[in-house]
Structures are given as C-alpha cells and as structure tokens.
C-alpha cells in the first residue's frame, strides 16, 4: 500500500497516474497482498474520476483507510486554477492516508542563488524533520527554475520551495509586490493561497489611492491575518554584503536591498568622487548583458545596467522614497487620472530635446508591442494626453482603474525612450540598438559581448547638479564634486577571480553580493572595504496550500514554531541579517505599510505536542503518522477549511 503510494508520487501526469492505477487494479493489487491495499486503490480512483470533494466522504466501507489527495479545494477567479481543473493543474501527488506514515516532502531550492542557500535548505529540512516529516531536497538551476517551477498559471508544481527574492526596486516601495501574492487572481500567487477575508482586504488596499495612512491600516490588517494563518515561512532579511575600493573613490551609497555596488539602483555611480588618478570606475561582475534593448529584454542584467542610460518618470531614493526624475511632480486629479509636470531642459544623449511627446510615444509603443520590461509600468494606463508643451510640458495619464501602486512602483519602473530613434523600428522585440540613446546620467559608449560595457558621464543630466543630487540621495550620503567620467562593467566570470582582481587592483568594486567570509578575504587588501546594506527582500519558504499537510493550519503553525530563524541569522549569516518577526514579507523599512506581527516562538517540542493534540501520532522511529479514526475526521475538517486551527473548530485534544 505505502509502496504503491510512493510509486504514484514519483509519476508525473494524471494520465500516467491512471495507467498505473489500472495496472495496480489488475496486477499490483495482488502483490500488495492485503484488503486494505486494494481498498485504497479503489478509493483514489474513485476520487480521481468523480472529482468530488475531499477524501473524508469517500470511504465507503468502515474498515478501509481514508485518504486525501493534493488538489484545489475551491473554485478560483482564474481559468487555470480551481477544483474543476484539478486534472490539468495538479502536477504532483502528495496524499494523506489515514494511519499511514507521512510521506517525504519534495523541497526545492537553488543553491547557486546565494552563498548560503544550501545551509538554508538544510535548516528547512531540519525543521520538517524535527516534526517527523521526511524531506527530499532538490537543487535546481536558478535560470530555469522560474519557467519550470514558478508557474503563474498553476502555481508551484511541488510542495515546498524556498527563495531569496531579488532587489527589484518596486519591492521596497510598495506593499503590493509581496502582499498581492496572497490574492487568488494574481500570477504571483505561487502557493495557491486563497482566503476570502484576506482577498477582500487586499482589493480594498489596492484601490486606496491618495490616502497612505488608510491604505497602511488595511495592509496592517492583511499582514496580521496572514501571519496568524502562518501562510508561509518568512525567514530573514539578509544584509547585502559588497566589496569596494574606498581609497580611490568616495561616495558609495548603501541603498537597501541593492548594497553599494549592485545594479538595481544608480545612486553610487552618480555620487562617486574619484580620489586617486583614475576617473574611470571599473566594476567587476559575473555576468554580462545580452543586448542593448532595455524595454524588450527578457529580464536579466540588461534592464538593470541600461538604467544608467535611460531615465524613468520617478526614481526610488536610497531611503526608498519616491523622488522626481523626468517628472518633477504628480497630481492626482481623481482616482483614475494623474497629471505630471516634466523636467525642463532635458536632452537626449544625441542632443535632441526631450518632450512630452516622447512620454506619450513610449507608453503607446510599449503597449502596442508588449514590451516585457515595461509591462508593469504601462499595464494600468488607458491613455496618455499632452496637457501642455510649455516649460518641460505636462502629461495626463488616464488609468483603467484606481491603482495605488501606479505612483509608487509602476512609475519608478518606467523607462522613457526617444520617439525619433524608435518610431521607425518595425519589430522592436528583435532589435538591438548599436547606440542606445536615453536621457540618463550616463551615455552609452561601447559594449563588447561577454567582456565589458562602457558608459560615460552625460553632463546634461540633473543628477550631476550638486544641489539636486543632495536632495535626491540625502545629506547623509551626499558627496559634492564633478563625479566620475566613465564607468566600466568588466565581466570577470566568477567570484574567486573577482576577489583576486579586487586584490590586484584590476577592478574598483565587486558588483555582486559575496559571503561574509569572501568579503573579509577581499578586504584584507589595503584600500578595499567590506560594505553592508539593509535588505527589503526576504528569504522565504513557500508552502503549497493544495497539499493536505500544509492545508492543515495546525501543521503550518507547528512548522512556524519548529523553524529557528534567529539561530540561522546568528550562526550561518554571522549576525548579518534580521530574523523576521512573524510570517511577514514586508520589511520594517517600508513605512508606513509595514506592521508589527506576532512572532512564533522557536520551540520544536511544543510544536510536536501541538501536532499530537491535533491527532497526529509518531511511530517507533519518530516519524509523523497521519491521524486515525475521529482524529482523522477532525484533520479532514481542518483541511477542508484551510484557515482554521483545532481551537477555531472546537476540536478536542487527541493526544
């Protein structure tokens, strides 16, 4: 019986699964050699073809063990998810069988993501093991994981996956990128979490435009509900550790999430002042860009590095505030209308003047041609009008619906391109400009595929003005001066060579995060320093809410108590990070949207006790065993509900 089950878990699609069940019915049932095994087979076939609700009602004869499969538990407001598409949308099996040992949980991670991801995976494994749940750790390639395992249509096709989120600026500016992942209608809901109370509040906050405090209050309520429901494990905000030469260069800015030298923000390179002989700042990186087409790139380094060439309507400051860029202010006319004044005297790198028409063109061009990197910016825009041409000009954005994040993350992600350079391009998705022209603080000089990109200072940009820059980056970080003349990204291939090149003085900074130990090694050289910045993106562990084990809130709460967040930060990260209080993905830096959430005390013994009270038992080898009898019915009830604990449902203590 249990062997048959394990066999099923390893098979992929539902059609193959059926085949095996048929094979089981004809041949293997005899091998299983007991009535219970045959009954189990019959029942799962039953659930499969009938598609009826829950295994709890499925058992037809008293002596047979009941089972609950991994499935969608209700209908969803999107086509690809919900209980009527279970056959297509469920791509893995994980079944709870009354009185059987809890089977192994497939748990995905990408070791190459950070220097300590493997240690983190081992912590996840340990936490589950402490509760008696065996774990199968699967290491996947960071590059292919998103296409394969982060499925917008059906969610994660495995029970558990972990990840350190990337420092995309929008994630530090607006609560939506993380909170809306708990909304059933977004593609980012990889955990297939659906909680109507939360959904309603999420809708409410997303449309609260203009009143920050009111929106923050709703967000706080959401965060507390999610935390109380222990919907995932939000583990830590690891510090961003980078290395740079501080003897020859002054003015590094430790932007949260990005650190001093990474490419998601441009503040360091516009603020940097040469103190030595060279005015060309060389940053060593491990991967090059693949093209010079920012709006139509398919995601990667090109978007980030070309940010130096292009400007957006607004920027995110080192304090993660929205600060003016091409637009100098934004007026909310009504819920769906926003007007912006554009900066006066801005020139494209080729000398042409920047006009409101360029903004209108960019938006329309991106919409018409589906520009992947600009989709987040243009999606809620219905139309753009030019209100005035005087001064820098004034444009009006008509939105399709009220969108609180338009004036935060969306405008910050914008990049405006010159109409006179793009209007003749027929197929922009297959176009690679030889000389990408923008308005940004640096103009493009050259790109040698696989080895380097070079840009030079564009004097006309406002960021080179001391007064304006002081305002943008803040007094704390501002360093006056003319800045650097050139910036070069040198592709050095791997971190060890980067550190060697740093020590030999071939590069001035390492443009990627390094581990604490690597940073200390590099900082042994005189003039080289380790630099750290806070982070606004968390390391988290996603639990699939389709899996009966994680659908049981009691188990999620127990797991929260069995997860040693602080121990990991202290021991593995060497104190370089913040353990997260509660299961809350929003950083305390994100004011006013961050709210305090109640932490789960680390106490694995108490967690085991909770599970036993809820009807789980342990076998002789400390493996967790699914509940039996009345306790099974209580378990089935909790799974059916999804968001209620034993106490919520007035269930007795089964221990």
């Amino acid at each position: 019986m249990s062997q048959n089950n394990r066999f099923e878990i390893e098979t992929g699609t539902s059609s193959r699964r059926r085949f095996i069940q048929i094979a089981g019915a004809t041949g293997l049932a005899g091998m299983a050699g007991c009535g219970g095994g045959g009954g189990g087979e019959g029942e799962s076939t039953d659930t499969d073809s009938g598609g009826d609700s829950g295994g709890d009602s499925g058992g037809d004869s008293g002596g047979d063990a009941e089972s609950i499969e991994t499935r969608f538990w209700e209908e969803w407001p999107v086509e690809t998810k919900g209980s009527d598409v279970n056959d297509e949308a469920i791509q893995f099996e994980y079944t709870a069988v009354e009185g059987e040992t809890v089977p192994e949980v497939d748990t995905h991670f990408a070791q190459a993501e950070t220097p300590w991801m493997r240690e983190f995976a081992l912590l996840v494994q340990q936490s589950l093991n402490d509760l008696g749940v065996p774990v199968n750790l699967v290491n996947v390639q960071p590059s292919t994981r998103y296409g394969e395992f982060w499925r917008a249509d059906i969610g994660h096709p495995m029970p558990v996956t972990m990840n350190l989120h990337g420092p995309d600026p929008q994630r530090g500016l607006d609560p939506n990128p993380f909170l809306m992942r708990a909304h059933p209608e977004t593609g980012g809901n990889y955990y297939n979490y659906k909680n109507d109370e939360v959904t309603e509040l999420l809708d409410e906050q997303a449309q609260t435009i203009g009143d920050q405090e009111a929106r923050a209050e709703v967000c706080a309520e959401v965060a507390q509900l999610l935390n109380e429901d222990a919907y995932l494990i939000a583990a830590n905000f690891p510090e961003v550790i980078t290395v740079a030469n501080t003897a020859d260069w002054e003015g590094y800015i430790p932007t949260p999430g990005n650190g001093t030298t990474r490419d998601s923000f441009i503040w360091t390179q516009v603020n940097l002042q040469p103190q030595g002989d060279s005015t060309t700042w060389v940053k060593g990186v491990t991967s090059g860009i693949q093209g010079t087409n920012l709006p139509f790139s398919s995601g990667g380094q090109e978007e980030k590095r070309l940010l130096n060439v292009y400007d957006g309507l607004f920027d995110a400051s080192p304090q993660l505030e929205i600060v003016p860029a091409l637009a100098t202010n934004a007026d909310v006319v009504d819920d769906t209308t926003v007007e912006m004044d554009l900066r006066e005297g801005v020139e494209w790198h080729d000398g042409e003047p920047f006009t409101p028409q360029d903004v209108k063109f960019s938006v329309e061009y991106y919409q018409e041609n589906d520009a992947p990197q600009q989709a987040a910016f243009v999606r809620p825009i219905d139309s753009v009008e030019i209100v005035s041409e005087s001064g820098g000009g004034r444009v009006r954005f008509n939105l399709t619906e009220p969108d609180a994040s338009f004036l935060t993350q969306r405008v910050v992600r914008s990049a405006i391109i010159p109409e006179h350079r793009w209007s003749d391009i027929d197929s922009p998705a297959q176009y690679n400009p030889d000389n990408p022209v923008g308005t940004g603080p640096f103009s493009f000089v050259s790109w040698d595929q696989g080895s380097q990109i070079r840009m030079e200072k564009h004097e006309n940009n406002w960021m080179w003005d001391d007064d304006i820059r002081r305002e943008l980056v803040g007094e704390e970080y501002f360093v006056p001066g003319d800045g650097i003349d050139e910036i070069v990204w040198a592709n050095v291939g791997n971190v060890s060579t980067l550190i060697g090149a740093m020590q030999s003085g071939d590069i001035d900074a390492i443009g990627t995060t390094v581990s604490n130990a690597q940073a200390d090694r590099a900082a042994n050289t005189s003039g080289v320093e380790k630099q750290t910045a806070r982070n606004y993106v968390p390391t988290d562990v996603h639990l699939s809410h389709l899996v009966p084990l994680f659908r049981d809130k009691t188990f999620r709460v127990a797991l929260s108590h069995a997860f040693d967040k602080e121990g990991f930060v202290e021991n593995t990260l060497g104190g370089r990070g913040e353990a997260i209080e509660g299961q809350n993905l929003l950083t305390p830096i994100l004011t006013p949207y961050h709210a305090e959430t109640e932490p789960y005390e680390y106490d694995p013994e108490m967690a085991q006790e909770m599970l036993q009270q809820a009807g789980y038992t342990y076998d002789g080898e400390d493996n967790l065993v699914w509940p039996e009898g009345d306790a099974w019915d209580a378990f089935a009830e909790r799974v059916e509900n999804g968001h209620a604990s034993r106490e919520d449902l007035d269930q007795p203590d089964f221990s």
Partner: protein
Amino acid sequence: MSFRRFLLKRTLIAALLTLIAVSVIFATLRLLPADPFSGLVASGSLTPDEVDQMRALYGLDEPIYVQYYKYIQNLFSFQFGISLTQQRPVGDIIIPALVNTMVLLLPALVATAIVSSLAGMYAGWNRGSWFEQSSIVVTTVFRATPIFVTGIFLLIIFSYGLGWLPAFGMRSSLANPDGYLETYLSVDFLKHYLLPFTATVLFYSGDFLMLARNSVVERMGSEFLMLHRAKGLSEMEQLGRAGRNSLLPLVTYFALRTGMLFQGVITLEVVFAWPGIGRALVQAILNQDYPTVQAAVFIMALAVIIMNLTADVAYAKLDPTVEAGDV
C-alpha cells in the same frame, strides 16, 4: 577514380552525420519543460496572452514538425534566425565569440603541434635519453591535469603572486580599442593572452609529443632508414626522413583537434574570463535560447565533421598507396 569514390562516400557520411547531430540537438532542446518566455509570466512582466504572442513572433506556436522543417532548411542555408533572449541575430552573438575562441586556441594548437611534435620526434630518436624520459613525464602531467587547474596555478603564480600579468579578460578594463586590429594587436592584449595561451599549449603538448615519439620509435630499425644510413646521411637527416614518415597520425590528430576547437574550452574560458564560444553556449543553454544553441551546436558539429573529412582526405593524399587506388 577510386579516390573520387572514396571522397564521395566520406562526404555523404559527413552530411548524414551533420543531419543527425542537428536533429538530436533540436529534439533535446524541445524536451526541456519550459521556454525562455515562461519566466516572463512568472515574474509578472507579461500576461499569458502576451507571452503567446511572443511565442508566435518566433514561430514557437507552430506544430513541432513545421518548426523542425524550417529549422533544417534555415540551418543548411546558414540562416540562424534571431535569438530568443537577446533581440539580435544569432550570428552577431556567435561569430564574435567564435573569433575570440579561435584567436586563443588556434595559435596555441599550431604552436604546440609544431614544437611538441619536433620534440617528440627528437625524443623518439634518442630513446632512453634523459630528454625523452623527462619530456614524457612533464607533458603527461600537464595532459592529465585538467586545464583549469593548470590555469589557476598560472594565475596564482604570475597574476596574484608576482603581479606580472592580468588575471582576467582579453584586455584591460581601461583600454578601449576600436576594431579587430586594435583589439588583437596590442601589448595589452598580449599580456592578457599569455597565460591562457600557455595553459592551452601545455595541455595539448602531451598528445603531440607522445604521438610523434611513438611514430618515430616504430620507424627506427626499419629498412628504409637503414638504407639512408648506408647512403651516409647524418643523424639529423635520418631523423628528418623518419619524421616525414611519422606524419600520418600527427596530421590526423591535428585535424581532429582543430575541429574540436570550435567548441571552445569552457573551463579555460571561465578561469580566465575569456569571452569565447564555450561561455556563450553555456549562457544560451541556461537561457533556453534555442536558436543560439542550435546554431552554435550546428557550427561545432559541422567543424568536427568537416575536419574529420579533411583528415580522411589528407590521410589518403599523404599515403601513396591511396593514389595507387588501393583504399
């Protein structure tokens, strides 16, 4: 007549092999579970509908046999299409990378082929000498050591330790040359070139040395050499005659190696951050950039097959028995 038949047969086999190779790579790539665009949905950049439009733009929405047919047709007319992830023609991606690889590997191979072969012949001629024994040991050690390990040792000594030579790349980050000529003919380039060149030469030296030595050893004592000695030729002149007769395996091996150069040496490229074809290919595979991978693999397969054919032909030409029609 028979040589022509021989050539025809070999060419046909080569063409068939190429077709099989490109078909295998086509099938392998399509077996991967996702494509580069699925990640765009995951990251929330595009909706599934918009991604479908992107797929259509690249013909990925067509039935698999149509894709295959077009693929074969385009490959054999050297139209590689446009990269899925880099917004530009595949040729623009592959050719500069291939040039960088050939600039590094071809001179290294030629240099090691000449030097090591001569040394090998000399070693074989002086069997049992100190030179023979030590040269075999040294080159075998370098042949047995992975090339990136040799590379790392060279870096540790000459770059990090002595600081004589730069640690990475093809040129200094501060240099900004224009065009191929300025790029490849400068002192700066030479400095960056020395270490990876040396690592390659050392790595390949063992093969040529052993081949040449063994060949000469086989010729020693043969009747034609006895005749030469009887004619009163000096030792070196006799070695020259023996060497010419030992060329066959060397030429074959050189041709095969040249074909394989087109694949680059990925570990070498990573250690020295050399922007060659190996790294470009790995990058393309990780990005699931089908057209780039297909084109790169096609060129690599074609190079090996053509060089094999060349070796066959050269063999036939070098061996007079072929002219006699006895193949």
